[in-house]
């Protein structure tokens, strides 16, 4: 079974840098994820949104990579949000308590609504 390597596109929405994640978030994703995060960080927005719509697999190494992004965001006083996680990965974000530190939204629109009122 071929690994679907992570591809990330960075786009700028009003006040939010969005990372569109496509593929698997596992050990192979580290460089792509960190490079994209650095590009998003350089957009100089207060909020970075991780869009998981194109992600069908996250393993424990991928969870560790997301913890790393969250640590970077906290260090630079930025908000890191997540959207479009499947029901299963919402549960995993709850179990790992990632959702205590990064708000999880069902879709991009609701995440954007939250950022526009806060």
């Amino acid at each position: 079974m071929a690994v679907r390597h992570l591809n990330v596109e960075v786009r700028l929405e009003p006040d939010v840098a969005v990372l569109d994640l496509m593929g698997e978030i596992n050990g192979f994703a580290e460089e792509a994820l960190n490079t994209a995060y650095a590009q998003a960080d350089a957009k100089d927005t207060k909020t970075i949104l991780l869009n998981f719509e194109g992600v069908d697999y996250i393993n424990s190494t991928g969870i560790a990579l997301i913890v790393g992004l969250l640590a970077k965001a906290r260090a630079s006083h930025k908000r890191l949000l997540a959207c479009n996680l499947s029901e299963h990965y919402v549960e995993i974000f709850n179990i790992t308590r990632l959702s205590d530190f990064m708000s999880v939204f069902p879709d991009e629109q609701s995440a954007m609504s939250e950022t526009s009122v806060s």
Partner: protein
Amino acid sequence: MTDPKPARTDADLSRTLAEFSVPSEAGNERLAMETVAEAVRDLDIRGESLERLKTAVAEATMNAMEHGNKYRAEVPVEVIVLVEDQDLIVRITDRGSGPPPAQGRDAPNLEAKLEGMQTPRGWGLFLIKSMVDEMSITGDDGHHTIELVVHLGVEGGK
């Protein structure tokens, strides 16, 4: 990967649904995960219950490939899937030596990880324990086996 063997029925009421092995190469945990999912397709494990089982199998296989077999591709991880009474059991065996990892691991300390006081890794066993009804690890001088149990039936399964 070796081909899954056809199901067989043992006299002791356990029924083997699949036996296979995967080379210890990064990414093969998904192969194990999908093969187990196919093996249990006729059982009443669907939706979120199936997703939990798949995550537990993937994480256990990753641990076996990484910590047991040190990602030596020529050293296989062996997987057996069986039903005993009202339990689905998945046993995943590597060729690791030394004592098996501690099973009573608490939830990782996310605050400490975010503050850089702990490595961001270390989620595997915690996730496995969270995904199945029972988990145990046994070992001897040349093998470690992690056993995952999901209780079947209307009141079973996480």
